């Protein structure tokens, strides 16, 4: 075989290592690493640093694997949407079959390794999370119901619960509240994105709330879920993982989040188009800070507890 039969990477679009990493949705993985680590560190049981590091890593790999399975199944709609068209599969860098193989192999490896590193409860929760994201959300809910984000959001809410289970070997009120915080936060976060991503989901035929029920209803839903989220977020302050730092952060951020949701609710499409969805974009950016700050505050309470400063 002559060398001329091989083209350069640019010509063939051959995948580099980074493209395989992109298959695992590294941005989602970073959020998973952070929330799982907070769940693990906030738990009342100390974990050996090597076990903690390995466990968080395997949780992240499991989350990444479910991302690869999502890209395998959703390659057709990813190709249509501007936001996702450059992902490795629709861009032609990685084949859908490769994405499936990598996703399935890493899923199995992550679950088995987490069971060996920590315990079967944590591994079981990770297996359920992967199943929930890849099968329940990606294959079933996403193309079927406008409530896809609401129910599917559970998949992203499990990591702190898994981290907690790594340390304690079980589930408790605190870990359920961390789950509920992400679960209730996901709909307003995603629907705000849908409001300013305009026709992306519509073109792909994904039944997002903006597509099926319109933007007025979506704005109402953003406000409703933000109102429901506030007591969950503030209420967590009065459990074992809360404290004055968390309470202060939760009160300020929920007030800002409610104000943002109210602003989104009271304006119409003409106003939004006039200022290029400034309020919606600001709310979306705030939603990222919201989640990071809440979990950061839980971490701060746990870190300061040995000094007698964290918690109540």
């Amino acid at each position, binding site marked *: 075989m002559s*060398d001329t039969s*091989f083209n*350069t*990477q640019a010509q063939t679009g*051959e*995948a*580099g*290592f*980074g493209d*395989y*990493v992109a298959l695992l949705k590294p941005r989602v993985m970073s959020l998973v690493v952070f929330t799982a680590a907070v769940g693990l560190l906030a738990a009342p049981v100390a974990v*050996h640093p*090597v*076990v903690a*590091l*390995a466990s968080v*890593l395997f949780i992240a790999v499991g989350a990444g694997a479910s991302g690869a399975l999502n890209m395998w199944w959703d390659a057709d709609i990813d190709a249509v949407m501007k936001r996702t068209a450059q992902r490795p599969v629709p861009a032609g860098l990685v084949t859908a079959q490769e994405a499936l193989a990598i996703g399935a192999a890493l899923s199995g490896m992550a679950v088995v390794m987490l069971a*060996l*590193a920590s315990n079967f409860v944590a591994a079981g929760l990770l297996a359920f999370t992967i199943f929930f994201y890849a099968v329940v959300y990606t294959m079933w809910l996403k193309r079927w119901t406008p409530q896809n984000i609401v129910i599917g959001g559970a998949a992203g809410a499990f990591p702190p619960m898994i981290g907690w289970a790594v340390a304690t070997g079980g589930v408790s009120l605190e870990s359920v509240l961390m789950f509920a915080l992400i679960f209730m936060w996901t709909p307003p976060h995603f629907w705000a994105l849908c409001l300013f991503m305009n026709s992306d989901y519509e073109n792909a035929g994904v039944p997002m709330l903006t597509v099926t029920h319109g933007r007025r209803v979506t704005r109402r839903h953003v406000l409703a879920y933000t109102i429901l989220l506030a007591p969950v977020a503030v209420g967590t302050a009065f459990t074992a993982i809360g404290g004055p730092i968390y309470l202060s952060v939760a009160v300020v951020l929920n007030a800002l989040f409610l104000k943002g949701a109210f602003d989104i609710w009271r304006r119409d499409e003409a106003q939004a188009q006039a200022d290029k969805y400034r309020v919606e974009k600001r709310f979306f950016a705030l939603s990222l800070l919201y989640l990071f700050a809440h979990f950061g505050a839980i971490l701060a309470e746990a870190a300061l507890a040995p000094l007698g400063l964290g918690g109540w």
Partner: protein
Amino acid sequence: MSFREEHELHKRRSGRNIGVGLVLAGFIVLVFGLTVVKVTRGDMQMPSSEEVGASADGNG
């Protein structure tokens, strides 16, 4: 083309190969570290011969 010359395919895939190699090396280090921690903490301790004998005699 000399026998020792690196094939174009190897050059092209070197980034990917190095990446996979580093990931595998990291995985080995992690599993080794986990094993050391589990063994030294006694998580993986096998039952002693006396315990095994006692349970076999029905005294366990």
